[in-house]
């Protein structure tokens, strides 16, 4: 990992508020006083109940939305510049593939938009198809694939330009539990190979613990960060399915759960404790 003192953080969020104006009503404060740093190569999960602003925070970092106040830097540049320079790759809960394009054409979309020539695109697509284990599916159309396969294609697309930062907004949220666990292990493997920093939005506690170096716990009304927990389960490359049955895994799951539930006395709605 590069030296933190000389390399700028992958993400640095300082004092960010986001207030949504409501027509003829009181404005909704989606985020207030958020400070967050993600080191290069670090895997950070944002977890919290629905309405805690975790997706809003991710959208602000991706420059898909603008903060009301505060500053957001990605690799030392403002979020807007970072987006224009394609500093990050992004994946959403929906795969958001273009149905009229083949799997290969979907993966190469970012490269094509940025003027990479055809041969270089084809080479990169072949690499990525290998990486996601869909080598024989390049010529298929999205609706011929299962939901898990579509999401893998979306992840390959987000990796196309070898970004130093991956922003993922509940990418496995729409998948069944078995596929989801397989995809999590897959993501760990991909991440170990690319060394990218990842900011991962989820509402599943085991998912956050299994994947992350650090879990950031958020709470709603108004959306804010209430706790940050280090997960010491080893590097991505060393984590495997066995970890899910490991005592240290359960310890961390319990810690995150307590951090989530400690924030208000009622049951925290919207949080998966699967």
């Amino acid at each position, binding site marked *: 990992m590069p030296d933190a003192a000389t390399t700028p953080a992958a993400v640095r969020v300082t004092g960010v508020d986001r207030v949504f104006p409501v027509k003829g009503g009181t404005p909704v404060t989606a985020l207030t006083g958020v400070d967050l740093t993600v080191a290069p190569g670090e895997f950070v999960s944002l977890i919290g109940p629905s309405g805690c602003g975790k997706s809003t925070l991710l*959208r602000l970092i*991706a*420059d*898909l939305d603008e903060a009301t106040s505060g500053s957001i830097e990605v690799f030392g540049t403002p979020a807007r510049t970072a*987006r*224009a*320079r*394609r500093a*990050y790759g*992004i994946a*959403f809960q*929906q795969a*958001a593939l*273009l149905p*009229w*394009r*083949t799997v290969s054409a979907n993966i190469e*979309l*970012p490269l*094509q*938009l*940025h003027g990479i020539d055809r041969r270089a695109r084809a080479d990169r697509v072949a690499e990525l198809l290998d990486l996601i284990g869909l080598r024989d599916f390049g*010529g298929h*159309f999205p609706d011929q694939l299962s939901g898990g396969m579509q999401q893998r294609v979306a992840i390959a697309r987000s990796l196309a330009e070898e970004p130093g930062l991956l922003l993922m907004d509940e990418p496995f949220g729409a998948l069944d539990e078995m596929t989801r666990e397989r995809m999590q292990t897959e993501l760990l493997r991909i991440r170990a190979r690319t060394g990218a920093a990842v900011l991962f939005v989820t509402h599943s506690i085991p998912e956050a613990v299994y994947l992350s170096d650090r879990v950031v716990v958020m709470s709603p009304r108004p959306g804010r960060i209430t706790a940050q927990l280090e997960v010491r389960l080893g590097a991505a490359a060393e984590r495997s399915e066995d970890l899910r049955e490991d005592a240290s895994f359960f310890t961390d799951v319990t810690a995150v759960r307590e951090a989530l539930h400690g924030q208000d006395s009622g049951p925290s709605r919207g949080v998966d404790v699967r």
Partner: protein
Amino acid sequence: MNPGVEAVLKRVLPPLALLVFGIALVQLLVTALSIPPFVLASPAAIWAEIVAYLPAIASATLVTGMNALWGLLLGSVIGIALAVLASRTRVIDGMLAPIVAAIAVVPIVALAPVLYTMFGSTSETARILIAGIAAFVPVFLNTLRGLRQVRSVQRDLFRALAATPGQVIRTLTIPAALPHFFTGLRVASSLAVISALVAEYFGGPRQGLGAAITTAAANSAYARAWAFVLGAIVLGLAFFLITSLIERAFTRFAR
């Protein structure tokens, strides 16, 4: 036999056999029951008229066909242009929607006599306009729906990829709209033919298919009227086939 050819034959032969059987049956009935030609013209008589009047049928088909084609082009271009405007500006959408809804339920050919007096009885302009208005409605409605197919997550993706507005239109908006546009175009192409032809029933120049059919029927030349009707059928099929081929060329779905 080549499996491709075999597949085509399997699809084409049964309806063709039915058609031949139907024609033979009609011929048999007409001859056996000595049905008068004003009730039902015999296929043999119609065939004789087709052979005798082939150049006249061809030129009448061409006249009506050109009216339908110009109308289809005019209606499509205006339909696409207004759909693009309406998809971008809510105000224009609000102004257009009720008017198009009104046009959609008005029998446009009813305008024919009025337009003939406007443009003069020797001009084909009125018919092109009628075909154009008829074609405009489905093209406009379907293209507008197509332009609204882009989902917000796709928009987010293109924004995250720092795509230029031109790239968004070329790579996202147009491909998403195409299937709907072609649905509209297919409906419009048959409407344009029907409108151009029926408009001829209400007056104007006499060179087209519609005029030829009414003239033949008025002169008790029933078999000849049928011969011109066949010209109209061929014309309608040609428009349908051509729009289907264009659609195929543009939609690169492998299914």
